[in-house]
């Protein structure tokens, strides 16, 4: 398979995963440019062809990009309330089922924002991206036992702070 096809196959396989990860990590939907940057960064890193676990590696890069983005945003000193309003466009005209789904997602997303970073790391990779504990450990450079402990503590915290999310699946 030539490089171009390989990139295409890789891109379609993981683009939505990276997209979701960044939305939940950053708490807004304006992440398309960052998704693109993540893939470019991976291709430029020379590890594209040699990396054994591309999924974990992609999330590693995506997380670093997200952290960079947060740093830059802090430098610009956005008003956080304005940012949220701006990032979630009006729901007018959407069917009710979509609105309800949207609302649930946003509730989850809002609670994510209140969690500490390590909890957010594992919860998003586990619940949103459905990575195994092993893959998460690989992406975060943590021990698998630390991932598990952090994950269960994060779930506990999430349930405590948000009764409406009591049904979050513990996998």
């Amino acid at each position: 398979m030539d490089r171009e096809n390989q990139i295409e196959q890789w891109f379609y396989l993981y683009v939505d995963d990276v997209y979701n990860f960044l939305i939940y990590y950053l708490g807004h939907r304006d992440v398309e440019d960052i998704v693109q940057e993540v893939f470019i960064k991976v291709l430029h890193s020379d590890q594209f062809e040699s990396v054994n676990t591309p999924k974990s590696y992609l999330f590693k890069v995506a997380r670093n990009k997200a952290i960079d983005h947060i740093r830059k945003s802090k430098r610009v000193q956005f008003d956080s309330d304005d940012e949220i309003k701006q990032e979630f466009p009006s729901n007018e005209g959407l069917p009710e089922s979509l609105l309800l789904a949207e609302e649930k997602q946003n509730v989850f997303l809002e609670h994510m924002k209140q969690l500490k970073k390590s909890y957010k790391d594992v919860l998003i990779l586990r619940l949103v991206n459905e990575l195994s504990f092993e893959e998460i450990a690989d992406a975060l450079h943590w021990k698998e036992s630390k991932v598990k402990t952090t994950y269960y503590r994060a779930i506990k915290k999430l349930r405590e702070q948000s009764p409406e999310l009591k049904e979050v699946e513990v996998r």
Partner: protein
Amino acid sequence: MKKEDYTENEMKPKGYKLNEARKKEMLSNIQQSDKRKRQKKKRAFPLKPTLGLGVAALILFILFANPILSSLRQDTEAGLTNQINFDPDQTLVKLLDKESIQVDLLNEVFEPHKNAKRVTGLVSFSIPHSSQVIGNKSSFRIRVWNDHTSAMSKDYPSENVFSKDTNSSLFAFEIPLTKEEALNLKKQNVTLGLYISPDWDGELKNNPATYKELKTDIELETIRKELGDVPPAIQRVEIVQRAEDGSDIPIDLLYDYYPIDSIKDKNQLEDLVDLYTSIKQKQDEGDITPYIYLNKFQNEGCIIEAKKNFEILIHELEFDSQNSDWSISDTTSVLQ
């Protein structure tokens, strides 16, 4: 209890999807960027010299190269001397000072099928990062000795001890002992030494990189009596942590610890006390008294048993509310 047993209703955060047109656009941008990068890389190689350039370079070389070459030659000679004197294993010995290595005699395990004992323990390293050290072909051995006997572990190759990305390591070692060696080791304090060598043929020629004096079982027993055992709470927390790590059951998250005295007089837990007693009665000498963990409704939990051979048994409990009957639904063994 398996993980699935505490799975509740599904409400996974819904996923977002990029629209297909945007994906195509992004892919095209990514591929273009990749092409540009690769072309840049190709261009980064030196330009092919033209004939004129080549001649000019040759003249300049003849004019100026000699003094540079002679200094280079000196450097190379010095480098070669360094290379000859450089012994990666000596470097490693220097890097590993006593404070950077922890060698611990953890346990002496009896293996009935072999009718022999083995010493097990842990060595942890922390050295300054050096690829030369990590890349060398040395191997490690642990030796335990006193005036009466000496026993040596097998080789632990450095490439297994250190991974490429780390400058610290932790490995477990084992030293098989005959009955006589085990008895002799108990007679007197022992020393545990770490040896590093590229070649283990023949007798040990070098000194240990580090060593540690250890007490015999008899002395340890005396010290324990003087100081008291490890505080029970710390011991319990450590055991539960090991049980969690080895089983995927988040015990501390799901349950609370209930000392047996706190539930002895509760009618609804009478059957559980019987179950606990039956487990305790089956324990061998040296095993740690089991712990009871229950959820806040006191209708689910586990009993954790720590054996003297470091095995932990997690007995998961099931409660039949109609008959007020407790039973073990599953037992998980953790041996780390």
